[in-house]
């Protein structure tokens, strides 16, 4: 089981802030492929990966990173703090 979190417009497009999933995905990219196949709202949120960032267990990571041992995945747009 893995917790998947969404922030900012990713959260709005998907329509929920977080969910817990059962997945066999080996990498973040595999997880994205699984999510996109679920429903059009996921397809819309993940249409352009260059507009997205991913964090694994609260550390910025890459889409080709492995998911083994990861408990929390978060997807969000580029950050705009400060």
């Amino acid at each position, binding site marked *: 089981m893995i917790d998947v979190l969404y922030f900012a417009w990713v959260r709005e497009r998907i329509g929920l802030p977080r969910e817990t999933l059962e997945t066999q995905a080996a990498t973040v990219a595999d997880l994205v492929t699984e999510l996109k196949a679920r429903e059009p709202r996921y397809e819309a949120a993940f249409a352009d990966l260059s507009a997205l960032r991913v*964090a694994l267990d609260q550390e910025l990571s890459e889409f080709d990173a492995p998911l083994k041992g990861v408990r929390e995945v978060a997807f*969000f747009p*580029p*950050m*705009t703090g400060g």
Partner: protein
Amino acid sequence: MKISVQAAPFDLGAELSEFGTGRADVGAVVSFTGIVRDDSGQMHALELEHYPGMTEAAITRIAQEAVERWDLADALVIHRHGRLAIGETIMMVATAARHRAAAFEAAEFLMDYLKSRAPFWKKEHGPGGTSWVEAKDTDEAALKRW
């Protein structure tokens, strides 16, 4: 080192009057304050979303790097989230060092990194609804100088 991610306003003067005091190795304190501005003249409010847990960890890591790299005596970061009105203070950083060059540089480094490496997202509320503020290419480019 003090890191705070909070919805509540903070007292800039009180924070600065305490910061970097009472020690013989501090000759310079630099601070930056971020304020909600309205470029369109029609904005009602600014909303800041963040990623609880990761936000604190990311800011702490950035501040630790600044302390080590510029040999700072102390560093302070306060960043607010939630709904803010125009003119309200969003955040502040402060750095304390032996000399001013290190304090200025470290404060700029902190700001450049907080802008695109701390998980905050800004949303503008206006008469036509809301819109997410997009990250600028210049924000990412600013990191390259460090």
